[in-house]
């Protein structure tokens, strides 16, 4: 196995019980992601994007086959190990930001570092760095309800990035943003991907997002329909 292989997915299948039957949300998935990719799962609604992202994020497990993320086989982790993987290596960005409303921008970004027991001085430095990446150093003391949608999503990006995770999973991160804000955060993520070598995997059907991707994985009815790598951009 190559040293910079991030994710290996082999013959993955995901079935959901629906009443007495089973619904097959993902089937026959075989993918490999290397470190530093800026890739997207693209497909219509119901094609299985979120389901696959969930599994890669150790929030769900494959029904059969295997997903190895950073050397951990997702299906074999217990809840504690999965939490540890998320805490140490993964960052999440959600469509609806999901910030903690009563906490300041600073505290929201600080939270993942608290879970990692990072000492205060280092924590402060890391938070301020992350806020600088997303251009929000002026809003340190604001609380999410006082921010615009674009600013909220930038806080969420800072929160996902602050611990410099190996892998960031972003599910429809632009769905609630207008065009200008979408481009802004996409550029931010592109820069972070380039400078920190963080791997990004998106789930999206937004053309704006797609235009930034360097690898496009098209899903259709739970299968990989097409896997395009854009070599130069």
């Amino acid at each position: 196995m190559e040293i910079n292989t991030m994710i290996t997915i082999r013959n993955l299948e995901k079935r959901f019980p629906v009443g007495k039957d089973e619904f097959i949300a993902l089937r026959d998935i075989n993918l490999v992601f290397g470190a530093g990719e800026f890739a997207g799962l693209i497909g219509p609604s119901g094609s299985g994007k979120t389901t696959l992202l969930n599994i890669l994020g150790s929030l769900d497990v494959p029904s059969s086959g295997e997903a190895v993320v950073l050397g951990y086989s997702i299906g074999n982790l217990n809840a504690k190990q999965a939490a540890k993987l998320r805490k140490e290596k993964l960052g999440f960005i959600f469509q609806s930001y999901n910030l903690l409303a009563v906490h300041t921008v600073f505290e929201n970004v600080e939270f993942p570092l608290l879970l990692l027991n990072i000492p205060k001085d280092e924590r402060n430095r890391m938070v301020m760095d992350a806020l600088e990446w997303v251009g929000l150093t002026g809003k340190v003391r604001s609380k999410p309800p006082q921010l615009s949608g674009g600013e909220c999503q930038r806080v969420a990006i800072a929160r996902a990035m602050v611990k410099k995770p190996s892998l960031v999973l972003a599910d429809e991160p632009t769905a609630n943003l207008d065009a200008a804000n979408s481009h802004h955060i996409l550029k931010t993520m592109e820069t972070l991907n380039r400078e920190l070598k963080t791997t990004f995997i998106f789930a999206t059907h937004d053309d704006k997002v797609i235009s930034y991707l360097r690898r496009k994985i098209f899903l259709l009815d739970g299968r990989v329909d097409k896997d395009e790598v854009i070599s130069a951009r």
Partner: protein
Amino acid sequence: MIKFLIKGLIRDKSRSRLPIIVVTIGVALTVLMHAYITGFMGDTVEMNAKFTNGHVKVMTSAYAENMSQLPNDLALLEAGKHLEELRRRYPDFEWTARIQFGGLVDVPDSIGETRSQGPAIGIGVDLLSANTGEPERLNLKKSLVKGNLPVRPGEILLSDAFATKLQVVPGDRITLIGSTMNGSMAMHNFVVSGTVSFGIELLDRGTLVADVEDVRLALDMPDAAGELLGYSAGGFYDDDHTLAMADDFNASYKDSDDAYAPVMKGLSQQGNMGMYVQMSKVWSAYISLVFVFAMSLVLWNAGLLGGLRRYGEIGIRLAMGEEKGHVYRTMIYESVFIGLAGSLTGTALGLFFAWLIQTYGIDISGMMKGASVMMPTTIRARITPMDFYLGFIPGLISTVTGTMLSGIGIYKRQTAMLFKELEA
């Protein structure tokens, strides 16, 4: 991390202030309710204590055995000396002598012939001595219908219904025909100073209230008294304390087989009163239990709702890689804090209001004209030691249990659903 949680707790009003207020109110109500019920139940007991039983009663052992017959031939002699001893030994009680007696009231016309006649039950109470608390104890002033309270020897009060039946008005003379301590016939004249109505059927049918010295004179009972009554200076009957005192007193006479030796009986050791006291204890416990249970449900629900409301926040924390056990524990710590804070303030608040009602009472005399005694004119709460911890049952235990149960959702929750839930 702890600082982070505390910040969240304090800033999120619906997570701290609101639940604390709910717990505070629930706990305060529980405490107040319990104190109120205890006071209310106690009042019935107190009424009986005031009129007949005392909190304790000292009498000769022979009198005690036939108490219902009011056997004044078995009355305690040297009552003054006994009173003095009681006051010395048990200074936290107020002691007073009473004589209960039966007799016939004869109302003469202008030439001395009987105009009307009727049987009566009388009590001789200390109406005239300097620091007597008896008129207040029996609520005589407020029970007065016509005339005045006796102010000099030889005056007597009649229950108003009885006076009407005998066609007697204040200022009239009546003759009491009874029997002396020695069993011979006694006749004594009184001037009716006023009429009273207690609002108690039993007392209003034919009751006399006279000064105990006059009764002694009338029934030839010098320095004797049927009963020496003791009233706790605190104003409330305390069964355990009173019975302990009775045991202590009776121990000094336990070797005596003299039928005229004094015995002390607590209120609950007299006739049916034991059952009453027992019943009031049971009822107070029973009603409190129902109330505690109801409040528990409310607070438990509040705990549950608090947990549900934080689904989003908890989802985020789980997605960030916080362990379920850690999230669960911090939720419980928070609920312990909320339960404690609410229980403490609620208990303080409940005790404060209970204390107000205990001290000043709620005057309902306007609602009950004619001043009945059995139904007290003021409702008073009563604070007992239990009120200091009772509120913590719904306040702390229910809040924490509610949170624990709602928190089970964290474990049941599929992390797989997190993304979907968080998308909403």
